[in-house]
């Protein structure tokens, strides 16, 4: 056993997870702010290192996940983060990179109950860098001082508007995390709404 083995991932389960967690916390508490997690995702190899970095940070054996049909990614998440695979309507975390499936995800993801609004889903959506820039939208809610203007790809804007159209009962809703192909991360938590 003297041979030196190579490691598949150099991502540190403790310290790198902590750093990614701080960044996710920062973007969640400051909607529209952008943080980059590419540095940490680069330490993971697999079909989708960006999703894997978020999964390693947020998931454990008590969390359930749906990857919208990406079996390779779900296999990696199960073996590394030990999360359970569930369907879109029961999963705590939903990872989606296929833009055409976002409507189905937002309409079916669980939004918590009035007594337990925290039992809602967090949707992590990946969009491609070359996506056409969308129209700007104005947002307001917790974490935003007054109003903030978000300039994001159309697919993200559509997702936010679609979520608002679900008219969840306060304080229910789903949290949205968006990640670009180069690791830029921003979040629109469930209480942040579009201002017309």
């Amino acid at each position: 056993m003297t041979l030196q083995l190579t490691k598949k991932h150099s991502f540190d389960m403790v310290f790198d997870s902590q750093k990614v967690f701080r960044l996710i916390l920062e973007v969640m508490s400051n909607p529209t702010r952008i943080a980059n997690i590419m540095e940490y995702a680069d330490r993971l190899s697999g079909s989708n290192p960006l999703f894997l970095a978020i999964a390693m940070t947020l998931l454990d054996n008590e969390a359930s996940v749906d990857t919208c049909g990406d079996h390779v990614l779900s296999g990696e998440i199960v073996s590394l983060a030990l999360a359970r695979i569930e369907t879109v309507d029961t999963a705590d975390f939903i990872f989606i990179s296929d833009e055409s499936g976002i409507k189905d995800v937002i309409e079916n993801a669980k939004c918590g109950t009035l007594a337990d609004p925290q039992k809602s889903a967090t949707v992590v959506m990946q969009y491609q860098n070359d996506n056409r820039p969308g129209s700007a939208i104005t947002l307001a809610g917790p974490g935003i001082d007054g109003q903030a203007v978000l300039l994001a790809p159309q697919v993200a804007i559509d997702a936010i508007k679609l979520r608002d159209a679900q008219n969840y009962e306060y304080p229910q809703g789903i949290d949205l995390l968006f990640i670009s192909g180069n690791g830029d991360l921003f979040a629109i938590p469930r209480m942040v709404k579009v201002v017309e």
Partner: protein
Amino acid sequence: MDKRRLTKVLARADRNEIAALSANVQKSHRPIIVKEPAKTLTMIKLRDPVKQGMFYIGEVIVCEAVVEIDSVQGAAVLMGDDLEKVLGMAIIDAAVNLEVFEDLEKLEGLEKEQDNRVKQEYAMTLNTMVNFESMDQEAPDDLAANKKA
């Protein structure tokens, strides 16, 4: 050799035996570490001998490792904190999963040796065994039937 038997043999084997077997695998294949050997805690489930119910007796320290050979994974979990041994077990498991493990006969030899040792130890302690007659009438019927048999 099924997984249950394989794990039992590997877990009872000496760390040097595991090291030799895994070194043999590494002569022809290059394992990649997916999850580094690390310590963790796990709950231990036991069956209560009287009421036959399952319960958790407590947590125990274990170490676990996951490796990959030609994108086929192998994993091992072992009670204790012998990180090198658990890594060797994971490598052997991956080789078995990939169906390239060549030392199955050695493993069977090890199994026989271990079984003999257990039998010997059992024989040594057998004459000190005390037979408790249970006066508890609440014991389930199937248990009483087992005793008669």
